């Protein structure tokens, strides 16, 4: 669905999405990296279970919540992807201890 602009530079960054190896560019937000890797739906909502994905990309809509390095409900668009980062999509409510 999303393609990178041809003039985008930056080093390659390896991370994981639900345990699978994935690649991003240095400077990408987690939300952008998910979209670039074809993961449009990053969670299901806690109440109705409807699928949600990154939307506003600027910290407002809270739809891009994911688990990052074991901490749930992080805003993917507000965190830069880092080498070795473990990003997990969320199914329903986060657990209280993660």
């Amino acid at each position, binding site marked *: 669905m999303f393609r990178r602009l041809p003039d985008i530079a930056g080093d390659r960054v390896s991370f994981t999405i639900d345990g699978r190896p994935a690649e991003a560019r240095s400077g990408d937000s987690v939300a952008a990296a998910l979209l670039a890797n074809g993961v449009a739906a990053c969670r299901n909502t*806690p*109440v109705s279970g409807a699928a949600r994905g990154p939307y506003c990309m600027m910290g407002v809509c809270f739809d891009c919540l994911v688990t990052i390095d074991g901490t749930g*409900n992080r805003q993917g668009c507000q965190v830069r992807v880092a080498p070795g980062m473990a990003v997990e999509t969320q199914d329903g*409510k*986060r*657990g*209280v*201890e993660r």
Partner: protein
Amino acid sequence: MAEPNQGKAGQGANQRGGEFDIAVVGGGLVGTAVAWGLARTGVKVAVLDEGDIAVRPSRGNFALVWLQGKGMGMPEYAGWTRASTEIWAGFADTLRQQTGIDVAYRKPGGFMPVLSEQELEDRANAMKRLHNQPDMVRYPYEVLDRAALLKEMPFIGPEVAGGTYCPLDGHCNSLRLLRALHAGLERSGVAYRPNHRVDRIEPRDGGFRLTTAAGEIRAGKVVLAAGHDSARLAPMVGLEAPVRPQRGHVIVTEKTAPFLHHPTGYVRQTDEGGVMIGDSFEEAGFDTTLRPGVSSAIAERAIRFFPLLGKLNVVRSWAALRVLSPDGYPIYEQSATAPGAFVVTCHSGVTLAANHALTLAPLIAAGGLSDAFTVFSARRFHVPQAA
């Protein structure tokens, strides 16, 4: 008052008239519960409410349906509260059948954890004194030491010394309760009139004339369930409601998977997963401004009880105003000088909603409160102050 109600024609703001058997002043949890119960008896009811910016504790409360610890100094209140917890499930069921709205009432029993051995002893003694009162309507409870509490809540913090437990305690989704009651009123043909702040009530022709911000209403009886505003309205019909606001802060976290399977007096997990943290008590008049210091204090205490809460994000916090009488207990009274006028006010509008709807309202519809309610009269405040 012989004229029948003219139905829904002419409910416009400037329409004079509107004839009802009973006008309930107040559209919060107390007023709607009473009105809902009145409508079930077949009488024609109007609910006169303020607008969106009314002081509305019903939108800010903690949603416990709670018995534990209640009734010191007034054992009848323990009995009244216990009765409500016993009919609450049926009440919730009736609401769901009528409106399709599930108010998420659960009665898993509630805990009051404490942070020291001394506090545990004090609490156990308080419960003993409560149950040793003459005429006390007893209810089951247990005092648990730390080991026993750990079996129920393995995630309590290291300082938690134990707690008390009452199997009749529970909670609900009180926002949905308010919504369900309003939906129920609509389905029962009750005339809900927002933006009808009542300016004046006059006994007239055996009934009452209510002058409101949006016209005049006549009713055979009037029930004052206006929360804080009942203090102003009650003297107009020979009653009194000396209530004052007491502020309480509440914090709610993001929704998490269910882990807290019992409500506690200060922390509970809602049916949708958010964790509510509450229980501050502040005398601050009608100011609902949030005080970060208070929010911090209640959050800090909650984390001492349940350290795992520290990882959760807070999504909202607010302050609401309890409606408190001088002794904290409800006032239920029928006017001696204007016999069709009643006052109904309490702090526990959620816990007592079932009683208000199913027990109190039918008595009001039938004519008057029974002798059992004498103890709840505001006349109890007329004793001279102790030196």
